[in-house]
């Protein structure tokens, strides 16, 4: 919805119009006279614009339909009809005129943007994506198209595509937020922070960017920086409750109770029914040993947001310390049922069970707790080794990197991405046999790992096994239809096998995703010239 309103807002601003609404389809006398004397498409369009300017979108739709009866092949009228249907929230009806407008004038940007917006509203994300990308082909710098496409990719968790689309530092608050989200989603919170910092340098007064930066710093446990920035945010916007709650949250996380407690009390006075305020007050009271007060706040918070598992957990802590083991047990069970995965929940659950005499179940939970802690420790160790390996790889020592990836795999053998990273190091070290082995393990663990399939295809291609290469590339694009490089590789393989029509289709798919993909464009040209071959990958 945000995109729709932003875009429609842009359109209105562009037209320089603002109006008060009326529910009756009655144009002013001069336009009525004009319609009677000159019932042309232009006259009806003029009336349509008047209605639109006065927020009477339903009336505008009628006027544009009348205009189109007189001039059915007008791309502009079709576009204006679509626009007003959208403004009137008739998303389904907007599709057809917009498509017709595009058929008549395919190189015009705005109908694509509107059609993409309508498709997003109808939850037809894949179709919308095509329109966003076509819009970008027409105008690669269109902010609306960039934001639409990036949000579309974010919705499908295609973070790499967003990162590729937006480049290192996009302009504007919205795109910066999208890029930061993509980095965050891809597990690179530190990169997200960098993007946000640069965005803030360019736009120092942006509350949204500051807000996001505070949250990301807190997620990275950089509490002191987060608190400093959070304080600044609150000082800049003293009436922004979200900002104050975020700041409070950071203070709670950073154990700055001397600052947190007065702020928590202050927020309670002004937002007694805000979930975050109640929850954080509950946490603080629990931490201070005031479990009865903690319970009161947390019960209210749970009532407001029954799906917040940590709230159930903290309520369980209150109850356990108030000797209500049965109540605590129930809260811990709710937290677990809602997906709480922190070992602490299981630990406290086990304690409650033991207090209730359910020793066997308690022992089982403790065992699960230990398993979860072990798994967490293994993940931490592997992450550390992997990060060291990444560094060695970027510093140009693939052999050392491979050693470290293997160390990581020793504790986390079923981590497909680690196997893939090992394969990259081995590739750079020139050890193709081991590289293939690592890739095969990666796809055994995660059969949908497109990048590994693509690399396996590449290895097969290089060894002249085109059938296997094609199979791997097809698997890659099946797993990740937006994986441009895999489409190009598939196209190159097909071209090598002289299956030019299929190759052209594959290249076309690549260019739909990324109209500027250099290899795809080159291959397309070579296919057209009839000289495509293996070197075009």
């Amino acid at each position, binding site marked *: 919805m945000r995109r729709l309103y932003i875009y429609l807002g842009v359109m209105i601003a562009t037209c320089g119009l603002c109006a008060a609404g009326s529910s009756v389809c009655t144009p002013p006398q001069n336009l009525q006279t004009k319609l009677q004397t000159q019932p042309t498409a232009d006259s009806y369009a003029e009336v349509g614009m008047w209605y639109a300017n006065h927020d009477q979108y339903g009336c505008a739709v009628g006027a544009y339909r009348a205009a189109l009866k007189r001039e059915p092949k007008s791309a502009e009228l079709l576009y204006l009809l679509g626009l007003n249907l959208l403004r009137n929230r008739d998303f389904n009806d907007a599709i057809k005129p917009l498509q017709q407008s595009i058929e008549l004038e395919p190189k015009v940007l705005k109908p694509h943007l509107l059609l993409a917006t309508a498709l997003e509203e109808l939850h037809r994300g894949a179709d919308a994506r095509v329109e966003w990308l076509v819009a970008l082909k027409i105008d690669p710098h269109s902010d609306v198209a960039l934001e639409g496409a990036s949000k579309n990719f974010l919705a499908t968790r295609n973070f790499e595509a967003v990162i590729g689309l937006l480049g290192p530092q996009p302009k504007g608050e919205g795109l910066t937020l999208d890029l930061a989200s993509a980095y965050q989603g891809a597990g690179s919170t530190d990169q997200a922070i960098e993007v946000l910092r640069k965005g803030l340098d360019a736009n120092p007064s942006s509350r949204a960017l500051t807000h996001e930066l505070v949250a990301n710093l807190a997620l*990275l446990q950089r509490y002191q920086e987060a608190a400093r920035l959070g304080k600044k945010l609150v000082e800049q916007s003293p009436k922004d409750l979200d900002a104050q709650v975020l700041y409070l949250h950071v203070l709670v996380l950073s154990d700055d109770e001397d600052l947190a407690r007065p702020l928590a009390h202050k927020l309670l006075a002004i937002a007694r029914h805000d979930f975050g305020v109640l929850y954080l007050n509950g946490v603080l009271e629990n931490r201070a040993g005031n479990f009865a007060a903690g319970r009161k706040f947390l019960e209210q918070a749970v009532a407001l947001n029954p799906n917040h598992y940590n709230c159930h957990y903290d309520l369980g802590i209150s109850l356990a310390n108030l000797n209500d083991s049965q109540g605590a047990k129930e809260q811990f069970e709710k937290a677990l049922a809602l997906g709480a995965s922190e070992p602490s929940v299981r630990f406290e659950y086990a304690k409650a069970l033991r207090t209730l005499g359910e020793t066997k179940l308690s022992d089982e939970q403790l065992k699960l707790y230990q398993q979860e802690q*072990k798994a967490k420790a293994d993940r931490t160790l592997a992450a550390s080794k992997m990060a060291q390996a990444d560094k060695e790889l970027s510093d140009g020592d693939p052999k050392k990197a491979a050693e470290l990836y293997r160390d990581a795999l020793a504790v986390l053998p079923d981590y497909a991405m680690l196997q893939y990273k090992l394969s990259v190091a081995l590739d750079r070290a020139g050890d193709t046999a081991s590289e293939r082995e690592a890739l095969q393990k990666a796809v055994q663990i995660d059969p949908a790992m497109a990048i590994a399939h693509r690399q396996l295809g590449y290895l097969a291609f290089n060894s002249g096994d085109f059938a296997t290469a094609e199979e791997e590339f097809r698997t890659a694009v099946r797993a990740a239809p937006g994986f441009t490089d895999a489409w190009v590789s598939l196209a190159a393989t097909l071209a090598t096998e002289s299956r030019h029509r299929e190759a052209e289709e594959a290249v076309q798919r690549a260019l739909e995703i990324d109209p500027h993909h250099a290899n795809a464009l080159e291959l397309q040209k070579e296919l057209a010239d009839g000289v495509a071959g293996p070197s075009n990958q």
Partner: protein
Amino acid sequence: MPHGKPGNWTRRRVLHTIPAAFASSLIPCQLRSLVSQDKPAAAPFSRFVDVAESAGLTKTMVYGGTDHITYIVELNGGGCAFFDYDNDGWMDIFILGGRRLEGIPPGSSNRLYHNNRDGTFTDVTEKAGLFDCGWACGVCVGDYNNDGFEDLFLTYYGQNRLYRNNGDGTFTDVTRKAGLLYPTTRFGSGATFFDYNRDGLLDLFVSNYVVIDLANAPKPSLDVPNCNYEGVATNCGPTGLPAPQHFLYRNNGDGTFTDVSKQSGIAAMQGSYGFTAVAFDADEDGWQDIYVACDATPSMLLMNNHDGTFREEALVRGVALGPGGILMGGMGVGQGDYDLDGHIDLLKTHFQNQPTGLYRNNGKAEFEDVTAPAGLSAERRFISWGTALADFDNDGYPDIFIATGTVYPELERVYAKYPAHSPRILFRNQGNGRFVELGDEAGPAISAKHQSRGAAFGDFDNDGDIDIVIMNRNEPPSLLRNDVPPGNHWLKVRLEGTKSNRSALGSRVIVHYGGKTQAQCLTSQSSFLSSNDPRLHFGLGKVTTADVDVYWPTGVKEIFKGVAADQLLTIREGQGIVEGRPFR
């Protein structure tokens, strides 16, 4: 879409982070305000004065980088010991030192200071044969060959060392002869002599910290997890580094030891970053158990199966983790009877933002975390190391001392919250199960700021109280002389084993005074990788006589009634009270 209303989204996301990211949010802490309502008792408390310089403890204890630490081996610093190496009845001091990554600055070494019996000490390190410039970590003291002279075992990042006391003021490195050499580098940390099989010989438990090879170790980096803190690149670990094996060596009685880690089950107990190891009879079954404070991993309680094997039960016995199952940064251990119920309770120092934990023992090694009700929760500003539950003012109630110091000296330049040097922490026992924190009123040495690590507790001037020696990184040590308020009485008990090991390590002593009962145990290591004065010190308050029960490590119990206060009592196993070493 990830960005609906940005504020709501980020709040929701961050609101899910509390238990994951913040351990102490789960800790049922006491109200800071409630704690501050606890006023020190009207009776005066001890005052501590740092007399290190005038006492001659002037050598800087070099240990790693000063402003910046690259590797974790640089930061632990060392333990220290009060022990009487020449049997003259006066506590000498041994302090562990290190080196720098880039080399060994002049003056580096462990230090042995001989007590001149006049409040001063003489550095006899080289004369005693103890000069060594490695990455020394921990010390434990015990007479492993039962010859009447206390020996030293030192842990290192590198090769641990066993020094036999020759009885003539010198020591000999007998590591090889004793069979304690190993082929690869280990990061030794905790160590304790104890008699696990009750054969009268001191065996040896050694905990290791992490597995790290400096040639391939990660360096401070914002790109590598656990190599940064609060957005500042810092030394890496321990989290993210492999956890090592811990070792048990059986004393063969001929000056050699046999590695029985595998047979005892200890080799299989991996997954923890071991620090201080304290051996005592946790469940009072007459057999020595071991508690190991572990950093960022579950601490370990190794229960003795009486057949040469151990079982690890810290989790079910309540001393593995913090509230909510949080992994605590366990550093040092104090053992003592804070609530005077005759059972040995445990105190464990932790990382910053984690309170020092107090665990009440019911005598069956079932521990209850009483950190919050005891009033210790609010103090979590500093990384805490050396510690003791000891009665500093002789009022009959054990108090708490904690040495503190950062592991990230780089942070101070960025955040005032994390100072490079920090004060000592002192809690006074109020006699009602609660403690109150003292500050300047306990003397300038308490508020003085250092980067401290090990601390040993003992009476260096034989004046009837407990003084403190502290290892400070890259500074001379501190020697905190306890100027105890007049009026209270005390009793010191020194034990000599005959059937039991000569040092009587593992003995439990219960003193009954004025209707109170206090238990203490004699350990080879305590505090942070340190070793305390083996003369157990009991403050008696206004009481002038006491009854003493001794539980020897071989299982025999002896009772001594109506012992007069204000004396050092020497008890020889099976022979009763005997004339001991000179005291005053």
